[in-house]
C-alpha cells in the first residue's frame, strides 16, 4: 500500500493566510477595494461619499444585486437566463395593466404578476430541460417574446407604451409598501436635523433630509443575498445546485434531482427580476416598455466579476453581490469623477477583463483545473 498516514510530499503545504485568501470571492473583494480606492482618490469631494451620493450608487448597486443573485445561482446550476431584462419590463407592465388599466387591488396585481412571472420562469426551465437546447437560445427567445408583449399589450389597451398612475393605485395598499416604501425615516430625519446629512432648501419638502430612508429595493437586495448565500453554501439544495452545474450527468447518477434544481433556479431568477420590477414601478410610479433593457447582461457581468464560472458549477453569491457593487459604483462614480460618460463601457470592459483573469487564476488554484 503506497499511500500511508504520512502526508504526500508532493502536496505543497499552503499557508493559512493564503488559504484564507484563495476563495471564489477574492476577485470581487480585490475589485471592490480597487474601485473604492480609485474613487476616494479622484472623486472624494464630488458629493459621491455624502449621504445623497452614497444613496445614489447604493441603490443602483442594490438593483444590480437583486438580479445578480438570481443570475448567479442559475449560472452555478449551469444555465443562463437572457430574458431577465425583458422579464423586468414585462413584470412592471403587468403590474400596471392589472393595477391601473384593469384597476384590480394592488396586492392582487402583485400576487398575480409574481405567479405569472414564476410560471414563465418555470416554462423557460421546462423547455430547456425537455428539449436539451442550450438555455442561451431558449431564454433568448423569451427575451424577444416578453419584450414584444411588453410593447404590444399597453399599445393595444391604452395605445401608449408607458402606463403611469401606479403610485396612486398603490396608495393605502397593504402589500405594495413591501416594495415601494422606505424604512428608517425617523433616523434620517434626526440625522438631517442634526446636520449630518443635507436638507431640502425650498419647496414643500423644505427641512426634510435629502435622503429620507432606506428604500425597500436595498432591503430586498440584502434579503436576497443572505438567502442566496445560505441556500448555496449551507443547505443540501445548495450542494445540488453546484452538482447540477458541475456535471449534470454525474449529479443524476448520484441521485441529485437535476431537473427540479434547474427549473427552480429559472423560477428564482424570474422571482428576482419580478422583485426588481415591482420595486421599480412602485418607486417611479409608471411602467414603460423599455424598462430593463440589457439588464440581463449587466447581471451576468456582475456575476462573472464576482467569480462565477460561465459554464456552471462554480461561483459565490457574495462574489456576485460584490460584482454588482463594483458595477454600480463604477457606473455612477464615473459621473461623480467627471469622466466623459461614453467611457463607461471602456472602464467596464477593463474591469471585466481584469476580474476574469484574476478569477480564472484563483479557480485554477482551488480546483486544480488545467
Amino acid at each position, binding site marked *: 500500500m503506497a499511500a500511508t498516514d504520512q502526508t504526500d510530499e508532493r502536496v505543497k503545504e499552503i499557508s493559512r493566510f493564503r488559504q484564507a485568501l484563495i476563495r471564489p470571492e477574492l476577485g470581487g473583494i480585490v475589485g471592490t477595494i480597487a474601485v473604492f480606492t*480609485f474613487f476616494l482618490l*479622484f472623486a472624494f469631494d464630488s458629493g459621491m461619499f455624502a449621504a445623497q451620493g452614497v444613496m445614489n450608487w447604493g441603490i443602483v448597486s442594490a438593483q444590480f444585486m437583486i438580479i445578480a443573485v438570481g443570475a448567479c445561482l442559475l449560472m452555478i446550476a449551469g444555465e443562463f437566463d437572457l430574458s431577465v431584462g425583458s422579464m423586468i419590463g414585462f413584470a412592471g407592465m403587468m403590474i400596471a395593466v392589472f393595477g391601473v388599466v384593469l384597476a384590480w387591488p394592488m396586492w392582487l396585481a402583485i400576487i398575480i404578476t409574481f405567479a405569472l412571472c414564476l410560471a414563465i420562469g418555470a416554462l423557460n426551465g421546462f423547455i430547456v430541460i425537455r428539449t436539451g437546447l442550450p438555455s442561451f437560445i431558449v431564454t433568448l427567445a423569451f427575451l424577444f417574446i416578453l419584450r414584444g408583449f411588453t410593447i404590444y399589450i399597453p399599445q393595444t389597451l391604452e395605445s401608449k407604451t408607458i402606463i403611469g398612475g401606479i403610485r396612486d393605485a398603490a396608495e393605502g395598499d397593504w402589500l405594495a409598501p413591501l416594495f415601494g416604501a422606505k424604512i428608517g425615516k425617523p433616523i434620517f430625519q434626526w440625522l438631517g436635523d442634526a446636520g449630518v446629512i443635507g436638507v431640502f432648501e425650498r*419647496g414643500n419638502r423644505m427641512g426634510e433630509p435629502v435622503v429620507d430612508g432606506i428604500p425597500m429595493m436595498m432591503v430586498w437586495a440584502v434579503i436576497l443575498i443572505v438567502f442566496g448565500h445560505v441556500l448555496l453554501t449551507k443547505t443540501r439544495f445548495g450542494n445540488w445546485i453546484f452538482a447540477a452545474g458541475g456535471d449534470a450527468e454525474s449529479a443524476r447518477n448520484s441521485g441529485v434531482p437535476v431537473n427540479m434544481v434547474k427549473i427552480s433556479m429559472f423560477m428564482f431568477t424570474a422571482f428576482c427580476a419580478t422583485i426588481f420590477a415591482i420595486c421599480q414601478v412602485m418607486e417611479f410610479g409608471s411602467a414603460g416598455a423599455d424598462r430593463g433593457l440589457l439588464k440581463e447582461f449587466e447581471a451576468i457581468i456582475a456575476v462573472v466579476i464576482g467569480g462565477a464560472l460561465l459554464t456552471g458549477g462554480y461561483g459565490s453569491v457574495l462574489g456576485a453581490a460584490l460584482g454588482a457593487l463594483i458595477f454600480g459604483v463604477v457606473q455612477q462614480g464615473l459621473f461623480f469623477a467627471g469622466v466623459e460618460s461614453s467611457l463607461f463601457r471602456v472602464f467596464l470592459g477593463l474591469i471585466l477583463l481584469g476580474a476574469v483573469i484574476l478569477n480564472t487564476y484563483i479557480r485554477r488554484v482551488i480546483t486544480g483545473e488545467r
Partner: protein
Amino acid sequence: MTSKMKTLALAASVAAAPFMTATTVSADAHAELSYVLVSHAPDSDTWWNTIKNGIALAGEQVGVNVEYRNPPTGDIADMARIIEQAAASNPDGIITTLADYDVLQGPITAAVDQGIDVIIMNTGTPEQAREVGALMYVGQPEYDAGLAAGIRAKGEGVTNFLCVNHAIQQPTVGERCRGYADGLGIELGDAMMDSGTDPAEIKNKVLAYLSANPDVDGILTLGPVSADPTIAALQENGMAGDIHFGTFDLGEEIVNGIKDGTINWGIDQQPFLQAYMPVVILANWDRYGVLPGNNINSGPGFVTADGLAKVEEFAGEFR
C-alpha cells in the same frame, strides 16, 4: 498574486488618469459654475451629437463647465438615477429632458427642492416643466409640431399615410404621429409602424408596408434613425420623389434627400438651440439674476430645398 492586483489597480488608474486630469484642469481654468445636461437617449442615437456640441459651445462661450450624461441603453429608470446622481454632485443647474413624467418628476422635483435650477429641454411639455418647478421649457411641443406637419401635408395632397416610428417605447415621440394624423384629419389607425431601430429592418418593413398598402401617398418619419432607411427603401422601389415624404429632424442623409427631391421637407426642432439656450440662460440667471419671461419654442421650422445651404454646412454638427 498581490503584485498582480497592484498592477491591475495601477493599470486602471493610469488608464483613467488622462481623462481625470483633463476635467480637473478645465474646472480650475473656467469659472465656478457647472451645469449638467441629462438626456434620455441611448448611446446609439447620433442625433444627440448636436446637443453635445451645443452645450460644449455654450460652455466655452459663456465660460462655464458643462457635462452631458445619458443612460447607455435609453432606460428611463436609469435616467432617473442619473438625475439623482447629478443632484448629489451639487451642480449649479441641471438641464434635462422629461421623457417620462411619472418616473422623472420625483428626482427632478427633489433636485429643485435641493436648490438646483432646472431647465427642461427637448421632451416634455411646458405644463409639466412648470409642475416639477423648472425655470422654463426649451423645445418643440411634439403634438403641435406633428399637427403643423399634418396640416401642411394635407395642403400638399396627402390622403393616406405611413408613420415610421423607431422609438415606439417613447410615448412623446408617438405624439408626432398622432398630431400628423389629426392635421390630415384622418384616423391614426395602424398607420403608425413600430419599425425598431435596425436600418435593414426598417427598410424592409417600409418596403413591405408600401407594397401591401398601395394607396399610401405620404410618409412621415420621426428622425434620422427611421428616415435614412426609408430613403433607401424609396430609392429601391422607385417611389423616391413620387410619394410625399416628410420627416422630423435633420441629418446628412435627410439633407441630401431634401436636395434631390426625395423628401419634401424636414421639420427642424433645432436641437442646437435646446442645448445652447439653457446653458446661456442658466449662466445669466446665476450671474445676474436675469431670466426670460416665457418658454422658448426651438421649433418647428420647416426646412425645404430653398434654405439648405447653412443646414448642409453644419448638418450633424450644429443643425
